[in-house]
Protein backbone atom coordinates (compact mmCIF):
# COMPACT_ATOMS: atom_id res chain seq x y z
CA UNK A 1 0.00 0.00 0.00
CA UNK A 2 1.32 3.49 -0.77
CA UNK A 3 2.47 5.61 2.16
CA UNK A 4 1.24 9.18 2.22
CA UNK A 5 0.97 11.92 4.83
CA UNK A 6 -2.04 12.71 6.98
CA UNK A 7 -2.32 16.03 5.18
CA UNK A 8 -2.19 14.45 1.73
CA UNK A 9 -4.73 11.85 2.81
CA UNK A 10 -7.16 14.71 3.45
CA UNK A 11 -6.48 16.19 0.02
CA UNK A 12 -6.89 12.76 -1.58
CA UNK A 13 -10.23 12.24 0.16
CA UNK A 14 -11.58 15.53 -1.13
CA UNK A 15 -10.24 14.92 -4.66
CA UNK A 16 -11.78 11.44 -4.82
CA UNK A 17 -15.16 12.67 -3.65
CA UNK A 18 -15.08 15.58 -6.07
CA UNK A 19 -14.39 13.14 -8.91
CA UNK A 20 -17.20 10.87 -7.77
CA UNK A 21 -19.82 13.54 -7.16
CA UNK A 22 -20.12 16.75 -9.21
CA UNK A 23 -22.12 18.46 -6.44
CA UNK A 24 -19.09 18.49 -4.11
CA UNK A 25 -17.17 21.76 -4.13
CA UNK A 26 -14.89 23.64 -1.75
CA UNK A 27 -14.84 27.11 -0.14
CA UNK A 28 -11.39 28.19 1.04
CA UNK A 29 -9.41 31.38 1.55
CA UNK A 30 -6.31 29.71 0.20
CA UNK A 31 -6.58 26.98 -2.42
CA UNK A 32 -4.58 23.75 -2.39
CA UNK A 33 -2.71 23.86 -5.68
CA UNK A 34 -3.28 20.28 -6.80
CA UNK A 35 -7.02 20.64 -6.26
CA UNK A 36 -7.18 23.95 -8.08
CA UNK A 37 -5.27 22.45 -11.01
CA UNK A 38 -7.58 19.47 -11.27
CA UNK A 39 -10.96 21.03 -10.53
CA UNK A 40 -10.58 24.70 -11.42
CA UNK A 41 -11.74 27.84 -9.65
CA UNK A 42 -15.48 27.16 -9.88
CA UNK A 43 -15.29 24.08 -7.68
CA UNK A 44 -12.23 25.10 -5.67
CA UNK A 45 -13.59 28.46 -4.77
CA UNK A 46 -11.20 30.99 -3.27
CA UNK A 47 -13.17 33.49 -1.21
CA UNK A 48 -12.51 36.87 0.31
CA UNK A 49 -11.61 36.59 4.02
CA UNK A 50 -15.21 36.21 5.08
CA UNK A 51 -15.50 32.98 7.03
CA UNK A 52 -18.89 33.99 8.40
CA UNK A 53 -20.37 34.50 4.99
CA UNK A 54 -18.86 31.62 3.06
CA UNK A 55 -19.84 29.26 5.87
CA UNK A 56 -23.38 30.61 5.70
CA UNK A 57 -23.28 30.32 1.93
CA UNK A 58 -22.49 26.64 2.37
CA UNK A 59 -25.80 26.27 4.21
CA UNK A 60 -27.66 27.90 1.33
CA UNK A 61 -25.81 25.88 -1.30
CA UNK A 62 -26.39 22.64 0.63
CA UNK A 63 -30.08 23.45 0.82
CA UNK A 64 -30.02 23.93 -2.95
CA UNK A 65 -28.61 20.51 -3.78
CA UNK A 66 -24.84 20.86 -3.36
CA UNK A 67 -22.35 19.23 -0.97
CA UNK A 68 -20.04 22.05 0.03
CA UNK A 69 -16.79 21.50 1.88
CA UNK A 70 -15.85 24.52 3.97
CA UNK A 71 -12.15 24.80 4.69
CA UNK A 72 -11.28 27.31 7.40
CA UNK A 73 -7.68 26.04 7.65
CA UNK A 74 -7.19 26.82 11.35
CA UNK A 75 -10.20 26.42 13.64
CA UNK A 76 -9.28 29.88 14.93
CA UNK A 77 -10.73 31.45 11.80
CA UNK A 78 -13.91 29.46 12.26
CA UNK A 79 -14.80 31.48 15.33
CA UNK A 80 -15.78 34.25 12.96
CA UNK A 81 -18.29 31.77 11.51
CA UNK A 82 -20.11 30.50 14.56
CA UNK A 83 -23.57 31.82 13.70
CA UNK A 84 -23.81 29.72 10.54
CA UNK A 85 -22.57 26.69 12.48
CA UNK A 86 -24.33 26.96 15.81
CA UNK A 87 -27.52 28.78 14.87
CA UNK A 88 -27.97 27.57 11.32
CA UNK A 89 -26.20 24.44 10.03
CA UNK A 90 -26.71 22.14 12.98
CA UNK A 91 -30.31 23.17 13.69
CA UNK A 92 -31.77 23.83 10.26
CA UNK A 93 -32.68 20.27 9.31
CA UNK A 94 -34.52 19.78 12.60
CA UNK A 95 -36.04 23.27 12.76
CA UNK A 96 -37.58 22.85 9.32
CA UNK A 97 -39.05 19.47 10.26
CA UNK A 98 -36.60 17.43 8.22
CA UNK A 99 -37.89 18.70 4.89
CA UNK A 100 -34.41 19.29 3.46
CA UNK A 101 -31.00 17.77 4.02
CA UNK A 102 -27.90 19.89 4.58
CA UNK A 103 -24.78 17.92 3.71
CA UNK A 104 -21.83 20.13 4.63
CA UNK A 105 -18.31 19.24 5.69
CA UNK A 106 -16.34 21.75 7.72
CA UNK A 107 -12.59 21.27 7.88
CA UNK A 108 -10.47 22.86 10.60
CA UNK A 109 -6.96 22.22 11.87
CA UNK A 110 -6.52 22.06 15.63
CA UNK A 111 -3.75 21.72 18.17
CA UNK A 112 -0.42 23.22 19.02
CA UNK A 113 3.23 22.46 18.44
CA UNK A 114 3.48 25.22 15.85
CA UNK A 115 4.81 28.01 18.09
CA UNK A 116 2.08 30.30 16.83
CA UNK A 117 0.79 31.30 20.29
CA UNK A 118 -2.70 31.38 21.76
CA UNK A 119 -4.84 32.43 18.81
CA UNK A 120 -3.43 29.97 16.31
CA UNK A 121 -3.05 27.03 18.72
CA UNK A 122 -6.47 25.88 19.79
CA UNK A 123 -8.12 22.52 20.39
CA UNK A 124 -11.71 23.54 21.02
CA UNK A 125 -13.46 20.43 19.72
CA UNK A 126 -15.48 19.95 22.87
CA UNK A 127 -17.20 23.26 22.11
CA UNK A 128 -18.82 21.55 19.14
CA UNK A 129 -19.75 18.27 20.83
CA UNK A 130 -22.67 19.71 22.79
CA UNK A 131 -24.34 20.93 19.58
CA UNK A 132 -27.09 18.49 18.69
CA UNK A 133 -27.34 18.01 14.94
CA UNK A 134 -23.59 18.16 14.29
CA UNK A 135 -21.22 15.22 13.89
CA UNK A 136 -17.59 15.70 14.86
CA UNK A 137 -14.66 13.62 13.62
CA UNK A 138 -10.95 13.84 14.49
CA UNK A 139 -8.67 11.26 12.86
CA UNK A 140 -5.32 10.11 14.26
CA UNK A 141 -3.77 8.41 11.20
CA UNK A 142 -3.56 9.02 7.45
CA UNK A 143 -5.77 5.96 6.90
CA UNK A 144 -8.49 7.26 9.19
CA UNK A 145 -8.18 10.75 7.76
CA UNK A 146 -8.99 9.65 4.24
CA UNK A 147 -11.71 7.24 5.27
CA UNK A 148 -13.42 9.52 7.75
CA UNK A 149 -13.29 12.58 5.53
CA UNK A 150 -14.83 10.64 2.65
CA UNK A 151 -17.56 9.43 4.99
CA UNK A 152 -18.11 13.01 6.14
CA UNK A 153 -18.48 14.33 2.61
CA UNK A 154 -20.98 11.58 1.80
CA UNK A 155 -22.94 12.11 4.99
CA UNK A 156 -26.23 13.95 4.54
CA UNK A 157 -25.59 16.04 7.64
CA UNK A 158 -23.20 18.76 8.75
CA UNK A 159 -19.95 17.14 9.85
CA UNK A 160 -17.09 18.99 11.50
CA UNK A 161 -13.78 17.46 10.49
CA UNK A 162 -11.10 18.48 12.95
CA UNK A 163 -7.58 17.67 11.84
CA UNK A 164 -4.45 17.71 13.95
CA UNK A 165 -1.68 20.21 13.23
CA UNK A 166 0.78 17.85 14.89
CA UNK A 167 -0.04 15.00 12.54
CA UNK A 168 0.00 16.80 9.19
CA UNK A 169 3.39 15.32 8.28
CA UNK A 170 2.73 11.84 9.69
CA UNK A 171 3.07 9.13 7.03
CA UNK A 172 1.05 5.96 6.91
CA UNK A 173 -0.37 3.37 4.56
CA UNK A 174 -3.44 4.54 2.70
CA UNK A 175 -5.15 2.43 0.03
CA UNK A 176 -5.63 3.98 -3.37
CA UNK A 177 -9.03 2.28 -3.61
CA UNK A 178 -12.24 3.75 -2.41
CA UNK A 179 -13.06 3.05 1.25
CA UNK A 180 -14.74 4.88 4.11
CA UNK A 181 -14.21 4.74 7.85
CA UNK A 182 -17.66 4.79 9.41
CA UNK A 183 -18.56 7.84 11.48
CA UNK A 184 -19.42 6.90 15.06
CA UNK A 185 -17.13 3.87 15.44
CA UNK A 186 -14.15 3.87 17.77
CA UNK A 187 -11.06 1.86 16.92
CA UNK A 188 -8.84 -0.18 19.19
CA UNK A 189 -5.39 0.88 18.08
CA UNK A 190 -3.60 -1.53 20.41
CA UNK A 191 -4.92 -4.33 22.60
CA UNK A 192 -3.99 -4.66 26.24
CA UNK A 193 -5.36 -5.90 29.55
CA UNK A 194 -4.19 -3.66 32.40
CA UNK A 195 -5.49 -0.20 31.51
CA UNK A 196 -7.49 1.51 28.78
CA UNK A 197 -5.98 4.69 27.42
CA UNK A 198 -8.41 6.66 25.28
CA UNK A 199 -6.36 9.07 23.19
CA UNK A 200 -7.51 11.78 20.82
CA UNK A 201 -5.68 12.52 17.55
CA UNK A 202 -2.00 13.22 18.31
CA UNK A 203 -2.51 11.69 21.73
CA UNK A 204 -3.27 8.34 20.07
CA UNK A 205 0.26 8.39 18.70
CA UNK A 206 1.68 9.48 22.05
CA UNK A 207 -0.36 6.83 23.87
CA UNK A 208 1.01 4.15 21.54
CA UNK A 209 4.53 5.32 22.38
CA UNK A 210 3.72 5.35 26.10
CA UNK A 211 2.30 1.84 25.74
CA UNK A 212 5.70 0.68 24.42
CA UNK A 213 7.39 2.17 27.47
CA UNK A 214 4.88 0.59 29.84
CA UNK A 215 5.25 -2.74 28.08
CA UNK A 216 8.86 -2.75 29.25
CA UNK A 217 7.58 -2.15 32.78
CA UNK A 218 5.31 -5.16 32.41
CA UNK A 219 2.10 -3.21 31.95
CA UNK A 220 -0.22 -4.06 29.08
CA UNK A 221 -1.96 -0.95 27.72
CA UNK A 222 -5.03 -0.93 25.50
CA UNK A 223 -5.22 2.18 23.31
CA UNK A 224 -8.67 3.22 22.11
CA UNK A 225 -9.17 5.91 19.47
CA UNK A 226 -12.74 7.32 19.43
CA UNK A 227 -12.14 8.74 15.91
CA UNK A 228 -15.59 10.33 16.07
CA UNK A 229 -16.18 12.70 18.98
CA UNK A 230 -19.91 13.10 18.34
CA UNK A 231 -21.71 10.79 18.35
CA UNK A 232 -19.16 9.10 20.61
CA UNK A 233 -18.88 5.31 20.51
CA UNK A 234 -19.46 4.71 24.23
CA UNK A 235 -19.96 0.97 23.73
CA UNK A 236 -16.43 0.31 22.54
CA UNK A 237 -14.93 2.52 25.25
CA UNK A 238 -16.99 0.89 28.01
CA UNK A 239 -16.25 -2.62 26.81
CA UNK A 240 -12.54 -1.86 26.96
CA UNK A 241 -12.78 -0.35 30.45
CA UNK A 242 -14.81 -3.33 31.68
CA UNK A 243 -12.01 -5.55 30.42
CA UNK A 244 -9.06 -3.60 31.87
CA UNK A 245 -10.73 -2.04 34.91
CA UNK A 246 -8.85 1.21 34.46
CA UNK A 247 -9.24 4.34 32.36
CA UNK A 248 -6.93 7.17 31.38
CA UNK A 249 -7.95 9.78 28.83
CA UNK A 250 -5.23 11.68 26.96
CA UNK A 251 -6.18 14.86 25.13
CA UNK A 252 -4.19 17.75 23.69
CA UNK A 253 -7.06 20.07 24.71
CA UNK A 254 -7.57 21.37 28.23
CA UNK A 255 -9.61 19.18 30.54
CA UNK A 256 -12.53 21.40 31.55
CA UNK A 257 -15.80 20.15 30.04
CA UNK A 258 -13.68 18.59 27.34
CA UNK A 259 -14.03 15.47 25.25
CA UNK A 260 -12.06 13.85 28.08
CA UNK A 261 -14.78 14.68 30.60
CA UNK A 262 -17.39 13.16 28.31
CA UNK A 263 -15.40 9.97 27.94
CA UNK A 264 -14.99 9.64 31.70
CA UNK A 265 -18.71 10.24 32.18
CA UNK A 266 -19.71 7.70 29.53
CA UNK A 267 -17.65 5.10 31.36
CA UNK A 268 -18.43 5.88 34.99
CA UNK A 269 -22.16 6.53 34.49
CA UNK A 270 -22.67 2.97 33.31
CA UNK A 271 -23.37 0.70 36.31
CA UNK A 272 -21.57 -2.31 34.91
CA UNK A 273 -18.49 -0.37 33.85
CA UNK A 274 -18.44 1.53 37.14
CA UNK A 275 -18.50 -1.73 39.02
CA UNK A 276 -15.58 -3.04 36.95
CA UNK A 277 -13.39 -0.01 37.65
CA UNK A 278 -10.52 -0.77 40.00
CA UNK A 279 -9.26 2.80 40.18
CA UNK A 280 -10.54 6.30 39.46
CA UNK A 281 -10.37 7.48 35.87
CA UNK A 282 -7.68 10.02 35.10
CA UNK A 283 -7.21 12.82 32.59
CA UNK A 284 -3.88 13.74 31.01
CA UNK A 285 -4.59 16.96 29.16
CA UNK A 286 -3.11 20.34 28.35
CA UNK A 287 -2.74 22.70 31.29
CA UNK A 288 -5.65 25.07 31.70
CA UNK A 289 -4.00 28.07 30.02
CA UNK A 290 -4.03 29.72 26.61
CA UNK A 291 -1.14 28.38 24.54
CA UNK A 292 2.07 30.40 24.89
CA UNK A 293 4.59 31.14 22.12
CA UNK A 294 8.03 30.41 23.49
CA UNK A 295 9.04 26.77 22.96
CA UNK A 296 9.86 26.16 26.62
CA UNK A 297 6.45 27.45 27.63
CA UNK A 298 4.55 25.69 24.87
CA UNK A 299 6.18 22.36 25.61
CA UNK A 300 5.30 22.72 29.27
CA UNK A 301 1.61 23.20 28.57
CA UNK A 302 0.99 20.16 26.40
CA UNK A 303 0.69 16.52 27.44
CA UNK A 304 3.02 13.99 25.82
CA UNK A 305 4.09 10.35 25.99
CA UNK A 306 6.01 10.86 29.24
CA UNK A 307 3.03 12.42 30.99
CA UNK A 308 0.81 9.64 29.74
CA UNK A 309 3.23 7.04 31.11
CA UNK A 310 3.34 8.86 34.44
CA UNK A 311 -0.47 8.98 34.47
CA UNK A 312 -0.66 5.25 33.76
CA UNK A 313 1.65 4.55 36.68
CA UNK A 314 -0.48 6.78 38.92
CA UNK A 315 -3.70 5.00 37.96
CA UNK A 316 -2.09 1.61 38.47
CA UNK A 317 -0.82 2.54 41.91
CA UNK A 318 -4.15 4.01 43.03
CA UNK A 319 -6.21 1.36 44.61
Amino acid at each position, binding site marked *: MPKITYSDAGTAALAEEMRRDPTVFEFCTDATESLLDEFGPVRIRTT*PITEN*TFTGMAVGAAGS*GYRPVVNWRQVTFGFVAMDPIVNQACKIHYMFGGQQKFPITFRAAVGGGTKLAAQHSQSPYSMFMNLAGLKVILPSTPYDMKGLLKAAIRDDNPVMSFESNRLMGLEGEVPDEDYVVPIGKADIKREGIDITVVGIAWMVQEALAAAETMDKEGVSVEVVDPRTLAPMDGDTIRASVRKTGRLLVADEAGPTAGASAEIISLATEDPETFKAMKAPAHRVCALDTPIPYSPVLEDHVFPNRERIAEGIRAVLSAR
Partner: protein
Amino acid sequence: MHPSPEMQREMLRQMNTIRRFEERATQDYLAGDIFGVVHSYIGEEAVAVGVCSALEDGDQIVSTHRGHGHCIAKGADLDRMMAELYGRETGYCKGKGGSMHIADFDIGMLGANGIVGGGIPIATGAGLAAQMDGKGRVAVSFFGDGASNAGSFHESLNIAATWKLPMLYVCENNRYAANTAAAATHAQEDVATRALGYDMPGVIVDGNDISAVYDAATTAVARARAGEGPTLIECKTYRWGRHTERPSQAEPRPANEVEEWKTRDPIPRLVEALKEQQGQLTDEEWEEMDREILARISSAVAYAKASAFPKPEAALDDVFSGEVA
Protein backbone atom coordinates in the same frame (compact mmCIF):
# COMPACT_ATOMS: atom_id res chain seq x y z
CA MET B 1 -42.52 47.20 -16.60
CA HIS B 2 -46.08 47.78 -15.57
CA PRO B 3 -47.93 44.71 -14.29
CA SER B 4 -51.02 43.62 -16.22
CA PRO B 5 -54.43 44.12 -14.60
CA GLU B 6 -54.74 40.39 -13.87
CA MET B 7 -51.38 40.44 -12.24
CA GLN B 8 -52.38 43.49 -10.22
CA ARG B 9 -55.50 41.72 -9.01
CA GLU B 10 -53.36 38.75 -7.99
CA MET B 11 -50.99 41.09 -6.17
CA LEU B 12 -53.93 42.60 -4.37
CA ARG B 13 -55.17 39.17 -3.39
CA GLN B 14 -51.77 38.24 -2.02
CA MET B 15 -51.28 41.48 -0.11
CA ASN B 16 -54.68 41.18 1.45
CA THR B 17 -54.06 37.52 2.28
CA ILE B 18 -50.95 38.57 4.17
CA ARG B 19 -52.87 41.32 5.95
CA ARG B 20 -55.70 38.99 7.01
CA PHE B 21 -53.31 36.19 7.91
CA GLU B 22 -51.31 38.47 10.20
CA GLU B 23 -54.44 39.85 11.84
CA ARG B 24 -55.58 36.33 12.62
CA ALA B 25 -52.18 35.10 13.74
CA THR B 26 -51.92 38.03 16.14
CA GLN B 27 -55.39 37.39 17.49
CA ASP B 28 -54.75 33.69 18.03
CA TYR B 29 -51.35 34.43 19.53
CA LEU B 30 -52.91 36.75 22.07
CA ALA B 31 -55.53 34.07 22.76
CA GLY B 32 -52.75 31.59 23.55
CA ASP B 33 -53.26 29.24 20.60
CA ILE B 34 -49.98 30.31 18.99
CA PHE B 35 -46.85 30.25 21.13
CA GLY B 36 -43.50 31.97 21.42
CA VAL B 37 -43.54 35.14 19.38
CA VAL B 38 -45.19 36.59 16.29
CA HIS B 39 -43.67 39.41 14.20
CA SER B 40 -46.38 40.88 12.00
CA TYR B 41 -45.71 42.01 8.43
CA ILE B 42 -48.70 44.35 8.26
CA GLY B 43 -47.87 47.56 6.42
CA GLU B 44 -45.03 46.04 4.41
CA GLU B 45 -47.05 43.71 2.17
CA ALA B 46 -46.12 45.47 -1.07
CA VAL B 47 -42.47 44.54 -0.63
CA ALA B 48 -42.83 40.76 -0.44
CA VAL B 49 -45.59 40.63 -3.04
CA GLY B 50 -43.97 43.12 -5.40
CA VAL B 51 -40.67 41.26 -5.38
CA CYS B 52 -42.06 37.72 -5.50
CA SER B 53 -44.36 38.68 -8.38
CA ALA B 54 -41.22 39.28 -10.41
CA LEU B 55 -39.95 35.74 -9.74
CA GLU B 56 -40.49 32.38 -11.40
CA ASP B 57 -41.31 29.19 -9.53
CA GLY B 58 -37.74 27.90 -9.53
CA ASP B 59 -36.34 31.07 -7.98
CA GLN B 60 -35.47 31.04 -4.31
CA ILE B 61 -35.91 33.42 -1.41
CA VAL B 62 -34.55 33.59 2.12
CA SER B 63 -36.55 35.45 4.73
CA THR B 64 -36.18 36.92 8.22
CA HIS B 65 -37.82 36.68 11.65
CA ARG B 66 -40.71 38.62 10.08
CA GLY B 67 -41.37 35.94 7.53
CA HIS B 68 -45.09 35.20 7.07
CA GLY B 69 -45.45 37.72 4.27
CA HIS B 70 -42.56 36.27 2.29
CA CYS B 71 -44.00 32.77 2.66
CA ILE B 72 -47.40 33.78 1.38
CA ALA B 73 -46.00 35.86 -1.46
CA LYS B 74 -43.85 32.91 -2.60
CA GLY B 75 -46.93 30.68 -2.62
CA ALA B 76 -46.82 28.78 0.66
CA ASP B 77 -49.85 26.78 1.75
CA LEU B 78 -51.89 28.63 4.38
CA ASP B 79 -53.05 25.44 6.07
CA ARG B 80 -49.54 24.22 6.73
CA MET B 81 -48.41 27.69 7.77
CA MET B 82 -51.19 28.06 10.29
CA ALA B 83 -50.71 24.49 11.51
CA GLU B 84 -47.06 25.31 12.15
CA LEU B 85 -47.96 28.37 14.17
CA TYR B 86 -50.39 26.19 16.11
CA GLY B 87 -47.55 23.74 16.80
CA ARG B 88 -49.25 20.84 15.04
CA GLU B 89 -47.73 17.83 13.31
CA THR B 90 -49.25 18.88 9.97
CA GLY B 91 -47.32 22.15 10.04
CA TYR B 92 -44.53 22.91 7.61
CA CYS B 93 -41.94 21.93 10.21
CA LYS B 94 -44.02 19.33 12.05
CA GLY B 95 -44.30 21.78 14.91
CA LYS B 96 -40.55 22.06 15.38
CA GLY B 97 -40.09 25.54 13.93
CA GLY B 98 -42.94 27.93 14.69
CA SER B 99 -43.30 31.48 13.42
CA MET B 100 -39.60 32.29 12.99
CA HIS B 101 -38.75 29.09 11.10
CA ILE B 102 -41.24 28.39 8.36
CA ALA B 103 -39.73 27.04 5.15
CA ASP B 104 -40.99 25.32 2.03
CA PHE B 105 -38.12 24.13 -0.07
CA ASP B 106 -40.46 22.82 -2.76
CA ILE B 107 -41.56 26.33 -3.63
CA GLY B 108 -38.11 27.89 -3.20
CA MET B 109 -38.83 29.42 0.20
CA LEU B 110 -35.58 28.54 1.98
CA GLY B 111 -36.69 29.62 5.38
CA ALA B 112 -37.35 32.37 7.84
CA ASN B 113 -34.50 33.02 10.24
CA GLY B 114 -34.30 34.16 13.84
CA ILE B 115 -30.86 35.70 13.49
CA VAL B 116 -30.69 39.26 12.21
CA GLY B 117 -28.35 39.12 9.22
CA GLY B 118 -28.17 35.33 9.42
CA GLY B 119 -30.17 34.76 6.26
CA ILE B 120 -28.09 36.97 3.98
CA PRO B 121 -25.19 34.51 3.51
CA ILE B 122 -27.65 31.63 3.14
CA ALA B 123 -29.41 33.45 0.33
CA THR B 124 -26.03 34.23 -1.22
CA GLY B 125 -25.22 30.51 -1.13
CA ALA B 126 -28.47 29.83 -2.95
CA GLY B 127 -27.42 32.46 -5.48
CA LEU B 128 -24.10 30.71 -5.97
CA ALA B 129 -25.93 27.41 -6.46
CA ALA B 130 -28.16 29.09 -9.03
CA GLN B 131 -25.11 30.36 -10.88
CA MET B 132 -23.42 26.96 -10.80
CA ASP B 133 -26.62 25.24 -11.98
CA GLY B 134 -26.69 27.51 -14.99
CA LYS B 135 -30.46 27.24 -15.35
CA GLY B 136 -31.13 30.96 -15.05
CA ARG B 137 -32.53 30.83 -11.52
CA VAL B 138 -32.17 33.83 -9.21
CA ALA B 139 -32.08 34.08 -5.43
CA VAL B 140 -33.49 36.83 -3.23
CA SER B 141 -32.33 37.88 0.21
CA PHE B 142 -34.91 39.82 2.25
CA PHE B 143 -33.59 41.65 5.31
CA GLY B 144 -34.31 44.69 7.45
CA ASP B 145 -32.63 48.05 7.94
CA GLY B 146 -31.24 46.64 11.18
CA ALA B 147 -29.64 43.73 9.36
CA SER B 148 -28.00 46.09 6.89
CA ASN B 149 -25.57 47.08 9.65
CA ALA B 150 -24.46 43.50 10.27
CA GLY B 151 -21.16 42.29 8.87
CA SER B 152 -22.83 39.56 6.85
CA PHE B 153 -24.50 42.22 4.69
CA HIS B 154 -21.17 43.72 3.67
CA GLU B 155 -19.42 40.39 3.15
CA SER B 156 -22.29 39.00 1.09
CA LEU B 157 -22.77 42.00 -1.15
CA ASN B 158 -19.07 42.15 -1.94
CA ILE B 159 -18.95 38.45 -2.80
CA ALA B 160 -22.12 38.59 -4.88
CA ALA B 161 -20.88 41.61 -6.81
CA THR B 162 -17.40 40.17 -7.35
CA TRP B 163 -18.76 36.85 -8.57
CA LYS B 164 -21.73 38.41 -10.39
CA LEU B 165 -24.19 36.16 -8.62
CA PRO B 166 -27.81 36.22 -9.84
CA MET B 167 -29.20 37.87 -6.74
CA LEU B 168 -31.54 40.49 -5.38
CA TYR B 169 -30.76 42.00 -1.98
CA VAL B 170 -34.02 43.50 -0.77
CA CYS B 171 -33.71 45.79 2.23
CA GLU B 172 -37.04 46.32 3.94
CA ASN B 173 -36.22 49.65 5.51
CA ASN B 174 -39.04 50.13 7.99
CA ARG B 175 -36.98 52.71 9.91
CA TYR B 176 -36.67 50.66 13.09
CA ALA B 177 -34.80 47.65 14.38
CA ALA B 178 -36.92 46.50 17.29
CA ASN B 179 -37.06 49.64 19.49
CA THR B 180 -34.11 51.38 17.90
CA ALA B 181 -34.54 54.02 15.21
CA ALA B 182 -32.45 53.52 12.10
CA ALA B 183 -31.46 57.18 12.37
CA ALA B 184 -29.52 56.30 15.53
CA THR B 185 -27.64 53.38 14.03
CA HIS B 186 -26.99 54.30 10.41
CA ALA B 187 -24.30 56.78 9.48
CA GLN B 188 -26.60 57.84 6.70
CA GLU B 189 -30.24 57.40 5.89
CA ASP B 190 -30.08 55.45 2.64
CA VAL B 191 -28.91 51.88 2.80
CA ALA B 192 -28.82 51.83 -1.00
CA THR B 193 -25.79 54.14 -1.00
CA ARG B 194 -23.72 51.29 0.34
CA ALA B 195 -24.06 49.52 -3.01
CA LEU B 196 -21.59 52.04 -4.47
CA GLY B 197 -18.79 50.44 -2.51
CA TYR B 198 -19.41 47.23 -4.41
CA ASP B 199 -19.98 48.71 -7.85
CA MET B 200 -23.50 47.36 -7.68
CA PRO B 201 -26.74 49.17 -8.57
CA GLY B 202 -28.43 50.47 -5.43
CA VAL B 203 -32.04 51.39 -6.02
CA ILE B 204 -34.42 53.18 -3.67
CA VAL B 205 -38.14 52.59 -4.09
CA ASP B 206 -41.34 53.50 -2.30
CA GLY B 207 -41.94 50.17 -0.60
CA ASN B 208 -45.63 50.94 -0.20
CA ASP B 209 -46.11 51.30 -3.95
CA ILE B 210 -46.33 47.80 -5.32
CA SER B 211 -45.85 48.86 -8.92
CA ALA B 212 -42.60 50.58 -8.03
CA VAL B 213 -41.39 47.54 -6.12
CA TYR B 214 -42.41 45.19 -8.92
CA ASP B 215 -40.74 47.40 -11.46
CA ALA B 216 -37.43 47.56 -9.61
CA ALA B 217 -37.52 43.82 -8.94
CA THR B 218 -38.26 43.01 -12.57
CA THR B 219 -35.30 45.07 -13.73
CA ALA B 220 -33.04 43.45 -11.15
CA VAL B 221 -34.22 39.95 -12.02
CA ALA B 222 -33.55 40.57 -15.69
CA ARG B 223 -30.09 41.83 -14.86
CA ALA B 224 -29.41 38.80 -12.67
CA ARG B 225 -30.65 36.31 -15.26
CA ALA B 226 -28.50 38.00 -17.89
CA GLY B 227 -25.42 37.25 -15.79
CA GLU B 228 -24.82 40.90 -14.95
CA GLY B 229 -24.85 40.39 -11.22
CA PRO B 230 -26.76 41.45 -8.13
CA THR B 231 -28.84 44.52 -7.30
CA LEU B 232 -29.54 46.10 -3.93
CA ILE B 233 -33.12 47.34 -3.68
CA GLU B 234 -34.03 49.45 -0.69
CA CYS B 235 -37.76 49.58 -0.06
CA LYS B 236 -38.81 52.43 2.20
CA THR B 237 -41.69 51.12 4.24
CA TYR B 238 -43.14 50.89 7.73
CA ARG B 239 -44.62 48.31 10.05
CA TRP B 240 -47.94 49.22 11.58
CA GLY B 241 -47.64 47.15 14.71
CA ARG B 242 -45.01 47.02 17.36
CA HIS B 243 -41.82 44.99 16.83
CA THR B 244 -43.53 41.84 18.13
CA GLU B 245 -47.09 41.10 19.11
CA ARG B 246 -46.12 40.47 22.74
CA PRO B 247 -48.42 42.49 24.99
CA SER B 248 -45.30 43.67 26.85
CA GLN B 249 -43.60 44.90 23.68
CA ALA B 250 -42.49 48.53 23.90
CA GLU B 251 -43.63 51.14 21.35
CA PRO B 252 -41.11 53.96 21.20
CA ARG B 253 -42.34 55.34 17.87
CA PRO B 254 -44.26 58.61 17.84
CA ALA B 255 -48.00 58.01 17.40
CA ASN B 256 -48.29 60.57 14.62
CA GLU B 257 -45.52 58.86 12.68
CA VAL B 258 -47.43 55.58 12.85
CA GLU B 259 -50.65 57.29 11.83
CA GLU B 260 -49.01 59.10 8.98
CA TRP B 261 -47.64 55.88 7.55
CA LYS B 262 -51.01 54.19 7.82
CA THR B 263 -52.26 56.73 5.30
CA ARG B 264 -49.77 55.23 2.84
CA ASP B 265 -51.33 51.77 3.12
CA PRO B 266 -50.27 49.81 -0.01
CA ILE B 267 -53.54 47.90 -0.23
CA PRO B 268 -56.05 50.75 -0.82
CA ARG B 269 -53.44 52.33 -3.07
CA LEU B 270 -53.59 49.31 -5.35
CA VAL B 271 -57.38 49.08 -5.03
CA GLU B 272 -57.68 52.67 -6.15
CA ALA B 273 -55.23 52.14 -8.98
CA LEU B 274 -57.23 49.17 -10.23
CA LYS B 275 -60.51 51.00 -9.92
CA GLU B 276 -59.09 53.87 -11.96
CA GLN B 277 -58.27 51.42 -14.72
CA GLN B 278 -61.59 51.15 -16.52
CA GLY B 279 -63.48 48.11 -15.24
CA GLN B 280 -60.57 46.33 -13.59
CA LEU B 281 -62.03 46.29 -10.10
CA THR B 282 -65.38 47.22 -8.63
CA ASP B 283 -66.17 47.75 -4.94
CA GLU B 284 -68.22 44.57 -5.04
CA GLU B 285 -65.40 42.54 -6.50
CA TRP B 286 -63.02 43.85 -3.89
CA GLU B 287 -65.42 43.06 -1.07
CA GLU B 288 -65.93 39.61 -2.52
CA MET B 289 -62.16 39.05 -2.73
CA ASP B 290 -61.77 40.05 0.90
CA ARG B 291 -64.58 37.69 1.94
CA GLU B 292 -62.94 34.82 0.10
CA ILE B 293 -59.63 35.55 1.74
CA LEU B 294 -61.15 35.70 5.19
CA ALA B 295 -62.85 32.37 4.53
CA ARG B 296 -59.57 30.88 3.37
CA ILE B 297 -57.83 32.05 6.56
CA SER B 298 -60.66 30.62 8.68
CA SER B 299 -60.32 27.30 6.95
CA ALA B 300 -56.57 27.35 7.59
CA VAL B 301 -57.27 27.89 11.26
CA ALA B 302 -59.83 25.08 11.21
CA TYR B 303 -57.22 22.84 9.57
CA ALA B 304 -54.70 23.72 12.24
CA LYS B 305 -57.16 23.12 15.05
CA ALA B 306 -58.24 19.79 13.61
CA SER B 307 -54.64 18.65 13.35
CA ALA B 308 -53.02 16.72 16.18
CA PHE B 309 -50.12 17.94 18.25
CA PRO B 310 -47.03 15.89 17.50
CA LYS B 311 -46.30 12.95 19.78
CA PRO B 312 -43.80 14.00 22.46
CA GLU B 313 -41.30 11.40 21.24
CA ALA B 314 -41.31 13.03 17.81
CA ALA B 315 -38.91 15.50 19.43
CA LEU B 316 -36.24 12.89 18.80
CA ASP B 317 -36.89 12.67 15.05
CA ASP B 318 -35.09 14.74 12.40
CA VAL B 319 -31.99 15.56 14.43
CA PHE B 320 -30.08 13.94 11.58
CA SER B 321 -31.02 13.19 8.03
CA GLY B 322 -30.94 9.53 6.91
CA GLU B 323 -27.45 8.23 6.36
CA VAL B 324 -25.57 7.56 3.18
CA ALA B 325 -22.67 5.34 4.17
